[in-house]
């Protein structure tokens, strides 16, 4: 339970009569939906603690009645719940241990670490094992000296990269949750980690640079730059220097950013009274280059190498649109965005900096096919530049593509002028932008700017509403803060702000209205002991029923054929593919690819005795996921050394690598049972096959 839920529970304990959800929502200053979620969480907690649950009655509200006997138990349990909260979670603790290790200039004893973080030595030792795995990909190792302590070994550049990454994640923690951090908070957090350093000076330095040079950094980029510079100063004091390869340094000195870096270095030298070696200036140059620049007007596709990158990006987009079988309407805009993004990405990859996408999981989940297509297409860049894109880097590319795709599916109607303020770079804001437009057709997104550009922009433009991913000062009255992925909650927030109803109100639970009707009928015929429980059981039953229909949809009736006559394996594959091509599940070339693969690698499609499962990859021409069943009149040889002859052909088309797995494994599992394969082959018609599979509940229990 979170703090708000606890507050709600206490409130309910005070109320002796029914309170409506609406009143509770008003009292706590949150939405009705939030209250319902909280009530669910509270009831789950109460159940876990063997306490009576909150009663909710339609049209009356909610009530919590508790006898004296339970009261004490509740209070002790609540107290325990409260106390458990502030403890550091494992991740946060490990981050702090890692920070201490990275920042130290010598060996640290386990004991001093344990004391500092207030946990046992065993805990620290376990954390260190986990950390060791985490930092391995960053080129760092942990050295233990018995009786003395531990130390991190590795390149100074690797250590610093790792520190910056860590500090950023500590400083911007919560950016995606409700309690977002502002840039100010992030600065405060950096200051806390460098108590002896004049961070304000560095902040001013970067702001001046931005003004004078005309560069625009994103908020995220600014945090990184400041941390890098602070680290440079800190590490130089302990004589920990970066060494850059001579040729690379020479190349960097020709870069336009080098003079800015040199200028920065001179001011830092004067202020902090240290000497900054040339290699370090080169290092700052790299970071200036790789800090994300915002705004398309900085784009200059002049030189050959830049031109080359741009045309490679066009190739990548073309490849992706082939994989996904879509045409980007705004290809030029997408290419510009990706170019801007890739310029900094390639710098990052060359200097082995890693990046973490805070919404990686959501991207991979929501846009899995886009992610996979991007991953494959990005090989073009990987081979051209001899770099390796991490999955997190690819997820950023997928964000751009996903944004471009969502853009396709809306029509603009200009009404409210919206300024979008974004912290985490171009990819996030693009996605947010299209999500906003598809939810609110009356939004006209005038521009997307970084936090620092906002003030200037507001002076020159008329804006009706500011939507920001960072909380803004209270003087910006017309602003709403949202999460980058625009959750349902955000949409609700915006709707209530605009006092308009959303265009596309989604039904949360489709069975809800039906349940209400059923409840009325049941209540009129019978005495109901617990309407709450009855309702829950009904919801479960109906949802289960709905899932059943959903699950059997992959096996389309039209994809089933019985006792088909074929002469050889090629004709069998072709025959099995016919309904797939006719119903536009796959292209003809998909079938050719299957035959080609089999000729190259052998009859691997014969996956079990008597069962062939012809299929190729998603990118070979799949529009829709489908599983076909074709039984053969006479068994056919596929030339497999142990599984011949084939009796059933299960033709498969898969749009991703997950949707079909449940059904396919149930089907294969079922057919591997003694005699089932032959029984299936005896079925004369589609209906008989379906009847047989349904009778055996093949697709129900997964």
């Amino acid at each position, binding site marked *: 339970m979170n703090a708000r839920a606890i507050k709600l529970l206490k409130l309910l304990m005070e109320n002796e009569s029914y309170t409506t959800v609406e009143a509770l929502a008003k009292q706590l200053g949150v939405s009705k939906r939030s209250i319902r979620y909280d009530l669910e969480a509270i009831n789950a907690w109460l159940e876990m603690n063997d306490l009576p649950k909150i009663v909710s009655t339609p049209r009356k509200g909610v009530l919590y009645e508790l006898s004296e006997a339970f009261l004490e138990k509740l209070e002790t349990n609540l107290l325990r719940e409260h106390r458990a909260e502030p403890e550091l979670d494992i991740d946060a603790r490990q981050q702090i241990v890692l920070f201490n290790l990275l920042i130290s200039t010598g060996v640290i004893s386990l004991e001093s670490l344990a004391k500092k973080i207030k946990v046992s030595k065993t805990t620290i030792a376990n954390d260190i094992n986990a950390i060791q795995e985490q930092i391995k990909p960053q080129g760092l190792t942990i050295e233990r000296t018995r009786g003395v302590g531990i130390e991190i070994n590795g390149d100074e550049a690797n250590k610093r990269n790792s520190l910056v990454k860590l500090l950023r994640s500590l400083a911007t923690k919560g950016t995606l949750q409700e309690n977002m951090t502002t840039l100010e908070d992030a600065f405060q957090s950096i200051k806390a980690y460098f108590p002896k350093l004049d961070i304000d000076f560095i902040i001013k330095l970067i702001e001046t640079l931005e003004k004078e040079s005309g560069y625009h950094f994103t908020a995220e980029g600014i945090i990184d730059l400041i941390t890098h510079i602070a680290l440079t100063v800190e590490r130089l004091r302990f004589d920990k220097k970066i060494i850059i390869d001579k040729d690379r340094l020479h190349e960097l000195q020709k870069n336009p950013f080098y003079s800015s870096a040199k200028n920065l270095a001179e001011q830092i030298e004067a202020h902090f009274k240290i000497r900054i070696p040339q290699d370090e200036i080169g290092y700052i140059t790299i970071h200036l280059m790789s800090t994300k620049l915002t705004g398309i007007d900085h784009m200059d596709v002049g030189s050959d190498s830049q031109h080359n990158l741009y045309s490679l990006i066009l190739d990548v987009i073309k490849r992706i649109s082939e994989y996904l079988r879509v045409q980007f309407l705004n290809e030029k805009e997408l290419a510009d965005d990706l170019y801007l993004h890739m310029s900094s990405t390639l710098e990052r990859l060359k200097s082995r900096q890693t990046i973490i996408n805070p919404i990686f999981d959501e991207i991979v989940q929501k846009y899995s096919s886009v992610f996979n297509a991007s991953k494959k297409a990005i090989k073009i860049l990987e081979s051209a530049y001899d770099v390796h894109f991490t999955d997190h880097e690819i997820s950023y590319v997928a964000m751009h593509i996903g944004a471009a795709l969502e853009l396709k599916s809306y029509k603009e109607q200009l009404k409210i002028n919206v300024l979008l303020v974004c912290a985490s770079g171009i990819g996030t804001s693009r996605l947010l932008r299209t999500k906003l437009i598809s939810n609110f057709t009356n939004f006209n997104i005038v521009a997307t700017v970084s936090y620092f550009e906002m003030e200037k922009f507001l002076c020159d433009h008329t804006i009706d509403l500011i939507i920001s991913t960072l909380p803004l000062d209270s003087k910006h009255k017309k602003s709403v803060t949202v999460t980058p992925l625009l959750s349902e909650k955000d949409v609700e927030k915006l709707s209530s702000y605009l006092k308009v109803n959303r265009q596309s109100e989604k039904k949360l639970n489709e069975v809800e209205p039906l349940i209400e009707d059923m409840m009325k009928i049941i209540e009129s015929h019978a005495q109901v002991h617990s309407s709450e429980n009855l309702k829950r059981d009904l919801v479960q039953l109906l949802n289960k029923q709905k899932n059943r229909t959903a699950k059997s949809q992959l096996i389309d009736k039209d994809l089933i054929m019985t006792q088909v006559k074929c002469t050889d394996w090629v004709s069998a594959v072709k025959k099995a593919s016919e309904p797939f091509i006719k119903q536009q599940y796959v292209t003809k070339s998909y079938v050719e690819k299957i035959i080609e693969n089999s000729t190259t690698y052998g009859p691997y499609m014969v996956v079990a005795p008597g069962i062939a*499962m012809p299929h190729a990859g998603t990118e070979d021409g799949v529009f829709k996921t489908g599983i076909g069943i074709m039984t053969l009149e006479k068994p056919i040889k596929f030339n497999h050394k142990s599984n011949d002859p084939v009796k059933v052909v299960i033709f498969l088309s898969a749009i991703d690598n997950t949707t079909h797995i449940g059904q396919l494994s149930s089907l294969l599992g079922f057919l*591997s049972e003694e005699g089932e394969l032959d029984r299936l082959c005896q079925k004369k018609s589609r209906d008989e096959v379906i009847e047989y599979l349904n009778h055996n509940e093949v697709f129900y229990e997964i």
Partner: protein
Amino acid sequence: MLRILTVCGAGVGSSMMLKVFTQQILKQEQIEASVNATDISSVDPKSADIIITTSDFANVIRNSTCPIIRIDNLTDKVNLKNQLLETISKIK
């Protein structure tokens, strides 16, 4: 942690099935391991401790130093389990 790679022609069919079955076995036996599915053209033998695939593909995967389990009957979980457990015990 033990890294297991399942391989097939396209990375969506047999290799995903092998992945699911392997995960089921590992869960039963309470063995911790990462299981990934991939297609034959992007397989990197260095990224795995054990490779599971069909005979046809096993013949194609060269310069692999890790053991390759050959599964020709996808539905024969008993065989998969025996081979998998035997290979794991050899590695350890």
